[in-house]
């Protein structure tokens, strides 16, 4: 015990201890927990008590396909994001700061730019007569415009674009925490750059890759805007299906059941992600 603690003595002013979290707790309890719980109850009470909403959800080929497609898109997006983000994070971790800060600036600019703006840009860029198709045709690489929008390709490009910063930024931290001397030691031990990457750099950055990848996967699972605008009707994702079921079909029971499934999967994966990050901290920044 050092010094004198005035922790409990605050009567006026900013309260301390547990009390000052009360407004936040009240707000979140009243307008977050309660509505979400009410929604979940609705999945087993609307239109009548029972599990019929879940039966519909898992019994119908249409909905099962939505689930599968959601996992497929999230997996593809996560895999591509990791593959693209790793080399960038690697360079950002060791680049001269002057060069690195330009790339960081671009990452932040893209991250802070309005989500709809970015998605809109991709809609225009990827359309049949869009710049990308024109450029590819102009270069003679293709002769017919590629279908780049309203399908898996469109969703993947748009989602990877949005997820990249969320993968790159934490990964830079992981890679910076690795002592460059370790890699020098590996080289002197006779490891070629490939061997050093495979046996040292990759294993050492794996916790960061796993944590970031899981975060991207979780975010992708529940993403609404980008899949709705860049995806096709044949590969609808869960979030869009939930919104449609409630908004257009006014089927609250079914929508709530789907929302519950999404919530359970998301929270479970989030818990695993917290474990990963926590374990990494306990392991001394490895």
């Amino acid at each position, binding site marked *: 015990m*050092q010094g*004198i603690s*005035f*922790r409990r003595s*605050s009567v*006026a*002013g*900013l*309260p*301390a201890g*547990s009390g*000052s*979290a009360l*407004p936040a*707790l009240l707000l*979140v309890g009243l307008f*977050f*927990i309660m*509505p*979400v719980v*009410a*929604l979940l109850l609705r999945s087993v009470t609307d239109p009548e008590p029972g599990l019929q909403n879940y039966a519909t959800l898992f019994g119908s080929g249409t909905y099962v396909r939505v689930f599968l497609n959601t996992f497929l898109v999230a997996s593809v997006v996560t895999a591509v994001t990791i593959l*693209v983000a790793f*080399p*960038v994070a690697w360079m*950002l971790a060791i680049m001269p700061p002057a060069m690195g800060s330009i790339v960081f600036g*671009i*990452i932040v*600019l*893209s991250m*802070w*730019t*309005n*989500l*709809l*703006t*970015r*998605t*809109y*840009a991709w809609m*225009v*860029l990827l*359309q049949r007569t869009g*710049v990308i198709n024109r450029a590819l045709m102009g270069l003679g690489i293709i002769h017919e415009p590629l279908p780049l929008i309203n399908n898996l390709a469109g969703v993947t490009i748009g989602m990877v*674009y949005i997820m*990249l910063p969320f993968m790159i930024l934490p990964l830079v931290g992981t890679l910076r925490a690795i002592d*460059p001397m370790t*890699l020098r030691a*590996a080289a002197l031990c006779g490891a070629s*750059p490939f061997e050093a*990457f495979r046996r040292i750099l990759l294993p050492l950055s794996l916790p960061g890759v796993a944590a970031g990848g899981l975060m991207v996967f979780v975010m992708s699972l*529940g993403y*609404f*805007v980008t899949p709705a605008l860049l995806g096709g009707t044949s590969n609808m994702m869960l979030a869009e299906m*939930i*919104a449609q079921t409630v*908004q257009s079909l006014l089927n609250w029971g079914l929508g709530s059941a789907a*929302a519950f499934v*999404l919530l359970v999967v998301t929270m479970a994966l*989030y818990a695993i992600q917290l474990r990963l990050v926590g374990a990494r901290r306990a392991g001394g920044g490895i």
Partner: protein
Amino acid sequence: MLLDYERLGWLRVALVGFTAAVAAFLLLPVVFIVLLSFGSSRWLAFPPPGWTLRWYQQLLGDPTWIDAALTSARIAAMAAMLAVIIGLFAAFSLVRGEFRGRQVLRGLLLTPMVLPVVVFAIAIYAFFLRIGLAGTTVGFVIAHTILALPFAIIPITAALEGFDKSIEDAAIVCGASPFQARLRITLPSIRIGIFSAAIFSFLASWDEVVVAIFMASPTLQTLPVKIWGSLRADLSPVVAAASSLLVGLTFCLMIVTALLRRKLSR
């Protein structure tokens, strides 16, 4: 040697090239949309056949766009203010409190950031339909405050964790009341965290689409809802003009943030 920039050899050429390509990929849509907004083609042909300010004139001449922008600004400002104040109080408790379940409380307050927005959107929409807050400014502000709260709590707790409490105690020993000590010593010390919290929670509301789509009414819609509607209808160049203004705003915000941070951290 894989982590020695100078000693990567040909690998460095490849990796730097790749990084530059990714940076270009990240920059491409932003630059593209700004260029397009000045193009004269109604069909968004690129490169544009000519340059024009027509889309900006249409945008600024349309009261529904102006209304939507003002609504967004009003809601975002209120949500950000509430989130920062409530978040500040919560942060004191999360950092300084010594009660059981502190970590659980932190997890709970941060959940709105993790839960898929669409789940929260239909939940709060259903709730507000029942209590008559759907389609109202109050409803919007409440929902957006919840979504913004984690973005306020994270930077403030981080700043507070980095602040040595014994400095505050020293002020109290010098005769300041605990309230004065916090107001005059602690708050100024964590001002960068508070400032970040304000920016992030403002952006969280300003850019929010999903809840807004559900909550919007014909008489109350935010800018993202207006853009969303236009996107679903057609790819009008007016959206490009609106988007470019948003990009400009982001850019200004980034510069102001960088400058203020530099000034505040002195």
